């Protein structure tokens, strides 16, 4: 499926986005400089940037960034690979949904933070623990999105599939999955942030190498500038990831009413 025409952000769109960011940054700088925001808590942007610049030049930051990025990616892919088939199944087979609903609803609110000691005991302090925690959290969000999406198949479309003797697997793949895609893509963007957040949290608490470990170290070491610098790198990473996901989404969902372009 290739995109016929996609509502790609236009040049003024980019300028607008960048402009807003600049305005917000300048606002922060002014607010901290004038003392409206406490400066030792919220170092002015310029100060954070000053702390960040030397880091940007060194390899460690990029290494940590790579570690975090890798954790995020693997967790998101794992969660998707597990949640999508299961979600399609639960969305289309009512008795499977009925059977698992209480258990799913019970497990979803289990906070990953509470699981950390158990996960460390079972999986250790390495990447596996980070991956487990992030996958666990992202999985449920994707499962809900896919289940809801697969349940939202247009009834006439579903009946057409039935009439033309599509097998269950074919219906899942060619009818339920595309119908669920708009939900799923939103779910992926929600889960992507969740995955990133948990990877970073695991790095902070368990000490898995990555941006989170740096946030933790700089907080303990009395360098708030650097701590904020790493938090900002995390935020930027989130933004970048989302931009990439949104671009991918426009390709995958080019047929969705949201992306059909002007009529």
């Amino acid at each position, binding site marked *: *499926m290739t995109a*016929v025409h996609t509502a790609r952000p236009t040049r003024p769109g980019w300028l607008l986005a960048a402009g807003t960011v600049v305005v917000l940054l300048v606002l922060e700088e002014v607010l901290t400089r004038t003392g409206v925001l406490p400066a030792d808590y919220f170092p002015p942007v310029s100060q954070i940037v000053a702390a960040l610049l030397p880091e940007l030049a060194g390899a460690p930051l990029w290494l940590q960034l790579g570690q975090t990025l890798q954790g995020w990616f693997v967790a998101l892919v794992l969660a998707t690979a597990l949640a999508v088939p299961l979600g399609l199944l639960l969305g289309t087979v009512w008795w499977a949904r009925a059977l698992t609903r209480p258990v799913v609803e019970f497990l979803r609110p289990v906070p990953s933070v509470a699981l950390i000691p158990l996960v460390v005991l079972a999986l250790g302090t390495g990447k596996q623990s980070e991956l487990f925690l992030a996958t666990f959290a992202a999985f449920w969000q994707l499962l809900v999105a896919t289940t809801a999406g697969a349940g939202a198949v*247009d*009834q*006439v*479309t579903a*009946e*057409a599939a*039935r*009439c*033309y*003797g*599509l*097998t269950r697997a*074919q219906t899942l793949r*060619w*009818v339920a999955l*595309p119908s669920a*895609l708009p939900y799923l893509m939103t779910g992926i963007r929600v889960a992507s942030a969740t995955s990133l957040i948990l990877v970073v949290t695991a790095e902070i608490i368990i000490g898995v190498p990555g941006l989170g470990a740096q946030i933790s170290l700089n907080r303990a070491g009395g360098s708030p500038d650097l701590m904020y610098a790493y938090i900002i790198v995390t935020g930027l990473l989130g933004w970048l990831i989302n931009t990439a996901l949104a671009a991918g989404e426009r390709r995958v969902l080019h*047929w*969705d009413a949201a992306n*059909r372009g002007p009529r």
Partner: protein
Amino acid sequence: MLEVTNIAKEFPTRTGTTRVVDDVTFTVGEREFFTIVGPSGAGKTTVLRCLTGLAKPTEGTVRFNGKKIVGPPPEFAVVFQDYARSLMAWFTVRRNVELPLRNLGLSAAERRERVDTALAQVGLSAAGSKYPWQLSGGMQQRVAIARAIAYRPQVLIMDEPFASVDAQTRADLEDLLLRVRDETDLALVFVTHDVDEAVYLSDRVAILSRSPSRIDEIVPIDLPAQRDQIGTKELPEFARLRAHVFSRIRAMVNTEPASAH
């Protein structure tokens, strides 16, 4: 071949159930072109849904070759009244037509050939790589027809399949159906609002009464087997049948309690 025996259909309502179809019985033979007509809201679509196994009749049974129908049999193809929603927005026209062929054990080349033929038959050769939402209403409807024809079913069920196409295309598609029937020994169950069309195409026309519906009358169409848009429609018998069917429908619409007048 297809036996509908005393089916009734009720829908749940806030206060109980409404009986939409009361008692409908008919059979469709091999190669027969069987048309159902009746006022809007009579229950034609509901009967078709029971026939295909998409809906379960509250009473009565539907049998295909002696076997009770519980879900859509693989030998059936359906063109839905709500054709636009029956197409998959995420597939091109070609993929939409090709999708049902995947289970038939055809080679890719055979599938391609069938899709090409069907699209050409409905006049959409040029639109194969478009998406359904890029097509006009009538073109979408023709995609749905192409999908059904390419599938080469034993029974083709069509719910007002020509409602959105122009008169000339409609005539062409009518003749296409007759030709396909002759070539592939198809049976057709057809719903239309166009009385001329019903008489022109059919071997028998069933007239459905207002809901809760029963069969008001089944009219055998004793016109020569070989139909022809001009010749057939000029026959006095055609005019007589047409007038008869039309007057039955008119009678039912005009006795409707909440009528337009």
